[in-house]
């Protein structure tokens, strides 16, 4: 947990410094009326101060509670995240229905031990229901990709 908080503080310190640097390039205040950069600078300073305090506190902290980001369960989550990024890319190139069916079939196969025909039917049914509700009822166009 301690290491995690130090990393988090580092990320937000960098982010706030980055925002301050960008905001300083925006038009300045006029006659006491704040310009577009004033507010982001003010908020970034609050974030910077808080992140530095978190870093100092975490540095002196003896908390040895594990962060729980490197276990077998978490690796499964990271693989899911990667799969979803691939699904997003595939969806724009292949098409919504086909890539969704493949994504669902893949996840259900991975997460369960159902017979192949159950996996196919459930993936197809979920894809069909979501497609029909959003495309025909809510008029959401899924016009992308070379396939359906």
């Amino acid at each position, binding site marked *: *947990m301690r290491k*995690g*908080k130090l990393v*988090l503080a580092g990320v*937000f310190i960098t*982010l706030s410094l980055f*925002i301050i640097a*960008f905001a300083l390039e*925006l*038009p300045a205040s006029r*006659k*006491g*009326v*704040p*310009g*577009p*950069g004033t*507010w*982001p600078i003010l*908020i970034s300073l*609050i*974030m910077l101060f*808080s*992140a530095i*305090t*978190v870093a100092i*506190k975490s540095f002196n902290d003896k908390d040895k509670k594990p*962060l729980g*980001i490197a276990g077998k*369960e*978490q690796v*499964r*989550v990271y693989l*899911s*995240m990667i799969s*979803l*990024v691939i*699904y*997003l890319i595939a*969806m*724009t190139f292949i098409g919504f229905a086909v890539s969704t069916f493949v*994504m*669902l079939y893949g*996840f*259900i196969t991975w*997460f*369960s031990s*159902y017979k192949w025909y159950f996996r196919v039917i*459930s993936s197809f049914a*979920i*894809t069909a229901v*979501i497609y029909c*509700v*959003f495309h025909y*009822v*809510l*008029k*959401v*166009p899924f016009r*992308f990709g070379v396939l359906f």
Partner: protein
Amino acid sequence: MLAEALNLVLQPSVLLYIVLGVAGGMCIGCLPGLTTTMGVALVLPLTFGMDATHSILLLIGVYVGAVYGGSISAILLNTPGTPASAATALDGYKMASRGEAGRALGISTTSSFLGGTISCIFLILISPLLAKFALRFSAPEFFMLAVFGLCVISSISGKSMLLGLISGAFGILIATIGIDDITGTLRFTFNNMNLFSGINFIPVMIGLFAMSQAFVGVEDIFKKTAPTRKVTKVFPERSDWGVIIKNSFAFGSLGTFIGSIPGVGADIASFIAYGQAKSMSKHPEKFGTGLPEAISAPEAANNGVTGGALIPMLTLGVPGDAVAAIMIGALTVQGLQPGPLLFQNDGPIVYAIFIGLLIANVCMLVLGLNSVRLFTKVLSVPKSILVPTIFLLCFVGSYALANNIFDVIVMLFFGILGYFFQKIEMSSSPIILGLILGPMAESNFRRALLMGRGDYGTFLSTGICWVFFILIIVSLFLPMLQKKLLKSR
């Protein structure tokens, strides 16, 4: 106004949506791992094509149903469906273990109904008065109000105030992306056309509350859930009614009050109510053994929050909790701006929300007492099907907002971020509140200085500003003082 509101609500399609919302909410609520916020966030995209009444009342139905639904799995499985039902599990499961599952569910259903109804009455009585008072607010008061909301949320949400502040500041900074309203300058857009109009907070919400929760679900996807207990008749015993009525009035009111404080949700309300019921009890040592009052108190309080959270949302445009933040999103999509002017400009909608909330509570009572056995079947839906379906709904839901793939990318980014925030015990709620209150704070900050010709004294120029200033100081320093007091004890 009331006749117009009744006209809006008493349409068969609106009533059907409320019933469907409550039933859907109960299904979502009773499934462990699916939170109320996640349920409302997932249903939100379905409302984009609806009118304001259908949309907001469907979401209210889901909200009421999900807060109550959490108690079903808490009582039957000892696994709270939502964090708000964790306190109910302590005694509810013990009572169910004695073979009195129906009685426990009956107590929770009736207490939830009474708590929710009381909160609705408070909402009806307080909101118009507060909205009328808020009409006196001008830019400095609105700025101070927004700052107060942000401070309360940051200091209460999560385990660390500093992490809450970082989270809230991050939300405010995200809200600054896009074209500046006053000068028309582009801020932090990096020449990306998708960022010109800013980042919409709906995909951010879906990512933070639904997608990240689904990732948590992947972690324990192979964990087996305990088999559910059989429920025969759902109704409290005659001896329970005294306790139910007494507790529902006291803790329903307490829940309403807690719900009206920005950032404090149903989970905190139910634990406070449980603690209070224990300290007021003649036999506190029996708490945890399956006492009716220990089930009734948290359930009345968590449903009391539903109406309470809507008070600041409708009257001031400040969300009481994450669900109220999503409702602000739903109203904004419909072209309605929550705040004091909502009562003036769209009075019938506001009163329709009041009536709809009452009807949703009645639906919850009827469905809870008659169809709980049906909802227990939902508990057998396998996670291996549920989690991929949630992934898909998150994708389609964020895409449906503007038919833009960029929103899906935003959702996925915040879903991943929300997962890591959970790991580090950093609350995601302040980000959303920052996104909503940030623009309100900034525009009023600059407008007030424009009106006051650059004089910062304008922020303390009226009595209301001073009240907010004192509240800001209290909200920032009270948690620190409480911590020090606890340590010294």
